[in-house]
């Protein structure tokens, strides 16, 4: 070969996609803060048994509605105070993180996996499969999300699993549409055709060749979906259709605290605050992911 100098490598070794993504991601301060907070919450949830000062269900009959430690009449034993039956709010929040994150994770995973499969089928095969899947998701989309979830929970009976299922179904169409749209833009690209020429079958084309190139928007949507799931779960919990007492779920904590809104502000404030901050963290991270993963925003 005479063209050896063609292969002269550049001085700077090009970055791998992951390294490139990370360098873009950490440039976004909001995303980084969101990411750090999420890591913190996840660690709390994992080590809840060791971190939480009390058992979430343990009722301290002598300390009902104790204000936070720094407030007047506060008790150093209960940093964020106690609720109407004397349970430590901090402990309940920490254990609640476990529950809320787990629910978010399950809901997002279920709807993501199902959505990807349906979207791939719709986009790849087209025709009747496409029409059937897309009309089904149109129907789901045409109903108000929470109302649909309430209806499903009402049929299946109120429990944390059922409300999780209901919410997965509610979020499903977003993932289906997103996947299908990306599949349609990728499917006619030359690299897909060259895999076909190489003899790749439908499954390989769908999951190994095309899917990795559709993942970026899905990851973003999943992150944002996480915060939605936590919020909607809290809403269902607040309506009494989600987690049942005495499970320490953030939404149901808010619901049971309703009667104390006037008298004991801390019982309502802290669950509300943690929902707010967690959701915000996920949204910040989702935006950061979008910026870092979208090639159009890079030069």
């Amino acid at each position: 070969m005479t063209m050896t100098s063609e292969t002269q490598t550049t001085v700077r070794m090009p970055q791998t996609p992951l390294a490139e993504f990370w360098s873009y991601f950490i440039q976004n301060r909001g995303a980084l803060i969101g990411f750090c907070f999420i890591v913190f919450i996840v660690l709390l949830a994992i080590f809840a048994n060791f971190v939480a000062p009390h058992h979430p269900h343990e009722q301290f009959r002598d300390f009902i509605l104790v204000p936070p430690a720094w407030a007047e009449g506060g008790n150093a034993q209960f940093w964020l105070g106690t609720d109407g039956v004397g349970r430590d709010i901090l402990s309940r929040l920490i254990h609640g993180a476990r529950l809320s994150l787990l629910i978010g994770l399950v809901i997002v995973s279920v709807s993501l996996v199902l959505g990807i499969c349906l979207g791939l089928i719709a986009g790849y095969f087209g025709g009747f499969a496409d029409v059937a899947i897309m009309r089904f998701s149109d129907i789901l989309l045409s109903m108000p999300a929470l109302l649909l979830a309430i209806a499903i929970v009402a049929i299946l009976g109120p429990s944390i699993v059922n409300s999780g299922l209901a919410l997965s179904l509610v979020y499903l169409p977003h993932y289906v549409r997103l996947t299908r749209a990306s599949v349609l833009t990728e499917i006619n690209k030359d690299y897909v055709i060259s895999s076909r020429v190489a003899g790749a079958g439908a499954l390989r084309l769908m999951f190994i060749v095309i899917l990795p190139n559709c993942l970026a928007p899905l990851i973003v949507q999943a992150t944002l979906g996480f915060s939605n799931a936590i919020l909607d779960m809290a809403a269902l919990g607040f309506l009494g259709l989600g987690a049942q007492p005495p499970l320490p779920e953030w939404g149901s904590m808010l619901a049971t605290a309703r009667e104390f809104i006037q008298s004991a502000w801390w019982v309502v404030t802290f669950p509300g605050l943690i929902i707010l901050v967690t959701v915000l963290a996920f949204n910040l991270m989702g935006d950061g992911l979008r910026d870092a993963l979208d090639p159009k925003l890079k030069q």
Partner: protein
Amino acid sequence: MSEPIMNQTASAESTKKAPIMSGVGLKQHYPVKQGFMKPPGLVKALDGVNFSVEAGKTLAVVGESGCGKSTLARLLTMIELPTEGELNFEGKNLLTLDRETRKELRQRIQIIFQNPYGSLNPRKKVGSILEEPLVINGKLTKAERKERALNLLQKVGLKPEHYDRYPHMFSGGQRQRIAIARGLMMNPKVVVADEPVSALDVSVQAQVLNLMMDLQQELDLAYVFISHDLSVVEHIADKVMVMYLGKVVEYGATEDIFTHPQHPYTRALLSSTPRIDPEHRIEKIQLTGELPSPLNPPSGCAFHGRCEFANERCKVETPALKDKTGESSVACFGIDENRLPYIDR
């Protein structure tokens, strides 16, 4: 309907060397929706095309956009199946074979695309892009696959350390080398190259063309080289097939076509190609008008609307591809009727 005239040509050649791949009467028609309540139209992307290519030789398919050359590439690699016609590979009709044999033979026909930025999966490393065909079809172990990939990387002028890189880290020319290496992974006999160098810079274009010619010699590959760039075709091709609106208008040895173009369209194409050396330039023939829509092709000879020599017969009758001297054939009434002034006899 064009008779399988070129088949005779092909059989005449076969006394010398049997073509490794040939097509007879290939047609590809697509129905097109024309709107609500209107009958669907029919686009004749390919309308009765015969071709043949021998091992170690290059058949160039030339024409402008919409002439059907890319459709032909898709048929040859069986990305699409033709509406009608025969596609022979090593003497067997690919279209009538059972699935297994077809899948087997299909691996011997590979394709290289025009745009090296779209033809490599951006999320995969070069190594796994190269090995994909082997993973799908082969029974090789992981180590054997890697060995073959490294071997071919070196053969196309890249280095072993490129094995672990992603496509976006390469320049256009290097990507096209990777695409070529990938095409060669399954030991193909025929490589269909769909405008393989049009997206590259001139200097890089020459590198890639040289590489393709080297590989052809070394591996006895047959190329079906699809291009709109006549200067490239002149250099690389042995036979040239000029297409216009889904039909072959002229076919022949490269030298004949470039020195004595017969069909008025071939002549116009040649004269439109810019040349550096004033001595290479020939008088510009300005074609009036544009390529007609394949959805609504003109009657008679498809070229008559843009042809300065067209007469009444051209508007009504469709000329068939007729054998001329040697191995060339032309589809033009003007030649039969001796009314093309530039052909001296």
